[in-house]
């Protein structure tokens, strides 16, 4: 679905060059999912098996099913994230079921932030967050390569200064 509408915008005119996210974020999210739910499944299986009998241990299959479902969902969500730097604005498109597409003109950017938490750092990832004067502007790009995040930050700041418009 989402790729279809993306192609539509590309056909319509000065086609934006979309960039997807690097696979690092996908790897990180899937690993976290497997680790936490895997631990839960083992704990549930052991506890139920020892306390209530082996038949109850079948409930441990529930987290395993969640892992399978989450594996697919994370993949779809990751594929849906993409951004495009156009001449005058930044486009961010995301979401599978709840789609959202954000356009932020460079001149309206007040602040560009690069953040990286401990887990993200371990996987070599960084997020770029844009702030405008409107708090509702929800423009963030997660899971970028740190070098790419810094390049994006510098480029956005530069373009923002050149086209600055404020409130």
């Amino acid at each position, binding site marked *: 679905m989402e790729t279809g509408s993306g192609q539509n915008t590309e056909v319509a005119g000065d086609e934006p060059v979309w960039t997807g996210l690097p696979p690092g974020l996908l790897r990180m999210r899937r690993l976290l999912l497997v680790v936490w739910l895997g631990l839960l499944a083992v704990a549930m299986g052991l506890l139920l098996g020892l306390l209530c009998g082996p038949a109850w241990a079948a409930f441990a299959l529930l987290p395993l099913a969640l892992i399978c479902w989450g594996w697919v969902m994370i993949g779809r969500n990751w594929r849906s994230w993409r951004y495009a730097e156009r001449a005058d604005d930044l486009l961010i498109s995301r979401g599978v079921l709840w789609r*959202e597409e954000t356009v932020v003109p460079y001149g309206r950017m007040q602040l560009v932030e690069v953040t990286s938490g401990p887990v993200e750092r371990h996987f070599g990832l960084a997020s770029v967050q844009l702030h405008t004067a409107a708090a509702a502007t929800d423009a963030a790009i997660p899971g970028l390569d740190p070098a790419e995040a810094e390049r994006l930050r510098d480029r956005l700041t530069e373009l923002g200064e050149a086209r600055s418009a404020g409130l």
Partner: protein
Amino acid sequence: MTTPGVDDAVQEKPEKEPVTERRLHPITPLRRAWAPVAVVIGWAVHDPDQTQRQLTRLTTTTLLIALAVVVPAAALYGFLTWWFTHFAVTDTELRIRTGLLFRRTAHIRLERIQAIDVTQPLLARVAGVAKLRLDVVGTDKKDELAFLGEREARALRAELLARAAGFAPETAHEVGEAPARELLHTPPRDLALSLVLTGATWGSLVAALVVPPLLWMATHSVWTVLATALPLLGAAGASSVGRFVSEYDWTVGESPDGLRIDHGLLDRSHETVPPGRVQTVRIVEPLLWRRRGWVRVELDVAGSSNSVLVPVAPREVAEAVVARVLPGVTVPPLSALVRPPRRAGRCVPVWWRGYGLAVTDSVFAARQGLLRRTLALVPHAKVQSVRLTQGPWERLWRVADVHVDTGANKTVTARLRDAQEAAELLKAQAERSRTGRKGARPDRWMV
């Protein structure tokens, strides 16, 4: 080459900029005297049984001693906070230095001013003083100048506006108050009638009259009834009498310094919004006002707390005021608003008819509501970002929402547009918001 230049600048600065610091009006310490009294009353209301027990234990001597300690302490605190609060106007900033133990210095840049409010609570009117507040994005309550002498407040406002407008610093003193032309005045009769015709007034009144007796029948507990009745009565009073008192004598004027809004029966308030500061305007039309053709106009200015532009006025008058507030903008007529496609009714039954959208050269106008109609206008130059959202159910019916974010933290949404139309709107609106800025006036509006 550079070193002498830097030296020059350093030497020049003190003589070029003789920053004279001023203090607030000497009556200011008195307002702090309320604090201990308020604390005692608050404690008494919070825990009445305990208070009664304590009161019976108190003797006259202890009371006198307590008074002898508390009153001078409060007076001293008030005096010291006044003594340590200074403000100064420089070429580019208003500086406020305050704090007894924790020093706090606020430098407010004048070209960033979104609005200036001069307010006078009832007691301040009696004493002939006023509060002055600069609305800049991010300022808080502490950044107001309370209190100044009435005339001093007006002179300071004129000077701040002149400096913010870009008049030369030497002449900024003498520019004085810009002449104002009245655009609209709300007659008290219309205001009273409009409140009578507002559903919220009746709703809160009925709640205040019906709920306490019912509670009394159910519980027979005085405290429960009082605890619910008092807030309900307060809400009813605020939404009827309170609104009348605060919106009484509402006057909207126009001057080279921008929009002037004066209102209030007991507490007077004078707001000045310089040109180009208004982010969104909303025209609200409650159901019962429709027969009379009345509307209410609300506005959003970044960092300002006042959100009403016109409490009640006939539609044509209100639209004329909006045209003055947003130069070059005409309010799109009802016929120009395009409804969402019919299938939007599958997402929002019945109410989908209330949605509408019109995009002109200068504004993005979105309407919502069926009984209480609201038309929100955003000039393209004020759009900070544009978003398109679409949920799964909306995707099924090929509709999408377009959100336009403005700097006053208000988002205007065009709901349930045809998906193709929404995608084009997103692109076109981003383009318009970028180019719409070119015709805008500079921050320093007199330059």
